[in-house]
């Protein structure tokens, strides 16, 4: 089996991005503010979105010719790790990661030129509408249909788990054209588009169910070029790797929280961190977090090697998902009663962890994909 060698030591630029991001997020959207947004109707703050655009975050991984910063997945991962650390709410992952990757991977040059700049500028919020079934993460075949109507298309169907679909302007819809599968850019405000927000386990990342009944589309609303199924597989792998970075940040935050508490909380005249039951649990957290980091960092660094990504992405997804869920749960246990209260932040991470582990494919689903890539 080939052994893909990459460098994991962070560059100065990555460190700079990390420090800036951590500082900005902490000041601008700390957990206090996250709680407010969490309880709000749409969990979205336009002002913050604008600032992210100005910081160049929304176009971080978009080519400069399309108004982005032209940076890569590694830098994007740093940003996501910091956002995961503070549970940053809003459609960043949906629009600046998932939808942006989708357009970059699947859309023809014309469409990219048309769409990417407004995504980078934060003028358009996009989301990928690809899932239809309540369980299982296979995205094809699509039951949603796009039939030719005049020189355009007519769209019918229903998509679920559309991330932050309730605030999306542009929906990237995967549909069966009768002659293969296509991807269509749909204006969320168009006639026949009905967006209903769902209540989610993780209130810091919303979802919508979107139905399309006879939505009229122009010819050039069809965005795809090339082999769509292959591109979709690739997009979901890339997104899984990106999500893994976010999960790493969350897991790290849970561990830090637990370790700090274990040092300061006394019972029976001793810090609880001096008891092996707590100490060893924290040590295992450390091991899982470090393992998770290794898989996420690796996946982000092999995004351009599709053979390696086919292994590295599901590897990172399964390892980071399980690590985050475990660390978040054990962190509550270390905190004891207080960790179980609404006022404490521990549960916010558990909810994010559990929901994230089922978003793009459960750990066992990802392992199955990994096995296929490994020939096991």
């Amino acid at each position, binding site marked *: 089996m080939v052994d893909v060698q990459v460098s994991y030591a962070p560059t100065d630029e990555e460190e700079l991005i990390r420090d800036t991001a951590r500082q900005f997020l902490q000041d601008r959207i700390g957990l206090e503010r996250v709680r407010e947004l969490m*309880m709000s109707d749409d969990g979205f703050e336009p002002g913050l979105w604008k600032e992210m655009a100005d910081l160049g975050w929304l176009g971080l991984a978009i080519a400069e010719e399309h108004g982005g910063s032209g940076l890569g997945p590694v830098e994007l991962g740093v940003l996501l790790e910091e956002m995961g650390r503070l549970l940053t709410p809003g459609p960043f992952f949906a629009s600046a990661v998932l939808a942006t990757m989708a357009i970059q991977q699947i859309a023809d040059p014309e469409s990219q030129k048309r769409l990417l700049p407004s995504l980078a500028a934060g003028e358009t919020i996009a989301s990928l509408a690809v*899932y239809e*079934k*309540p*369980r*299982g*993460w296979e995205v094809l075949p699509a039951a949603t249909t796009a039939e030719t109507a005049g020189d355009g298309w007519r769209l019918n169907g229903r998509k*679920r*788990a559309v991330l932050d679909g309730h605030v999306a302007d542009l929906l990237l819809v995967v549909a069966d054209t009768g002659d293969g599968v296509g991807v269509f850019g749909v204006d969320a405000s168009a006639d026949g588009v009905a967006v209903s927000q*769902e*209540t*989610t*386990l*993780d*209130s810091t990342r919303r*979802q919508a169910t979107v139905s399309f009944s006879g939505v009229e589309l122009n010819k050039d609303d069809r965005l795809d070029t090339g082999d769509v199924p292959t591109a979709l597989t690739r997009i979901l792998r890339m997104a899984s790797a990106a999500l893994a970075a976010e999960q790493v940040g969350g897991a790290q935050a849970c561990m830090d929280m637990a370790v700090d508490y274990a040092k*300061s*909380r*006394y*019972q*029976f*005249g*001793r*810090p609880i961190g001096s*008891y092996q*039951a*707590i100490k060893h649990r924290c040590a295992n957290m450390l091991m899982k977090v470090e393992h998770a980091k290794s898989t996420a960092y690796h996946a982000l660094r092999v995004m351009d090697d599709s053979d390696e990504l086919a292994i590295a992405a599901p590897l990172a997804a399964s390892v980071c998902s399980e690590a985050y*869920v475990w660390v978040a*749960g054990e962190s*509550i*246990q270390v905190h*004891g*009663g*207080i*960790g*179980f*209260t*609404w*006022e404490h932040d521990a*549960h916010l991470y*558990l*909810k994010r962890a*559990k*929901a994230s582990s*089922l*978003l793009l494919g*459960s750990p*066992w689903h990802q392992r199955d994909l990994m096995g296929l890539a490994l020939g096991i």
Partner: protein
Amino acid sequence: MSEDRIQNLVSELLAEHPPETTSNVEFWGAQYDKGLAWAWHPEGFGGLGMSRSDQTRIDQLLVDGGASTENRYLNLLGIAMGAGVLDAHATDEQKRRWLRPMFTTEEIWCQLFSEPGAGSDVAGLATRAVKDGDEWVVNGQKVWTTLAHIAKWGMIVTRTDPDAPKHQGMTYFIVDMEASGVDVRPLYQITGEAEFNEVFFNDVRVPDENRIDAVGAGWRVALTTLMNERVAIGGGSNPRGGGYIGQAVDVWKETGQDDPVLRDELLHLWAEAEAARLTAIRANQMASAGIPGPEGSTGKLAWANLNKEITALTVDLLGLDGTLYPEGYELSRPERSGLHEPSKAFLRTRANSIEGGTSEIMLNILGERVLGLPGEPRVDKDLPWAEVPRG
């Protein structure tokens, strides 16, 4: 005590106060007066000096006779724990004052032990009570108090001598939850629901006649309370395939799944749950056969782990739908309910390994009391409470 006598007393009660035409409160009062409330209590205090098992038979007969025994749930902390405390430690005056309205549910009871700084280490509690004439002035905060918002009486342990070693300087009172200076606030949990309260005491005055047992005897009384609690909790023995494992199986079937990996996980948990269930049944049988054994000590620990794993798997079985939370989060007081729907159950059960004794404490107890393994070096035992490090 003879079957006949019990049979007769119950028939008498049912005849004199036909359940269908008698209010519950009135019936429970009459049941108390007949000594059929806590059969093992002395006469005049809701009992007839019978045995605990006699009471089980009495309750069965009452249920057969159409009477309600719901008071045992409505006033669980009072009837299951408070009564035991009064029976063991209170004066006759105190018993007369409190037992009857407790049994009739006219006065609901709650328990005030845990504090923000005293969780697993309850004996480290800091709520102070200072003698002032023939009253005590109580200041401090208690947490994880169920029913406090509807309770009339609270069983509270306080620190009366900070300079004594932690287990010695405590005193136990029954505090009027309606007294001025008592502030009960809902304590919202991970689910957004408030099953518990936090209770603040600001210069609350408690008459010395509400003191249970001697000054400084608080820990002994507290242990009686906790002992009765363990009995009350016990191993909730569902029928086979009941509880959350049953819910998981239902979800598996309703969603018509066939993933062999998830099926094995489900079967694995089904097997573990059935093993724990059989262990609880075996433990009860051994106990009633008078054969002492460790079977009974593992239930709390086992079910805490199982409930957490089972509900987590159930959410996984829902797949993409597992990322949803149908009920939504609203800060509210829950109405008493059975099983939660899967995603709420997943959240709620995270506390099972914390509430009523953390799993770490349960493991210590199993290791030390059941297996006889040595304890850890204690740094707090003989220090004056005030000098115990608390970070």
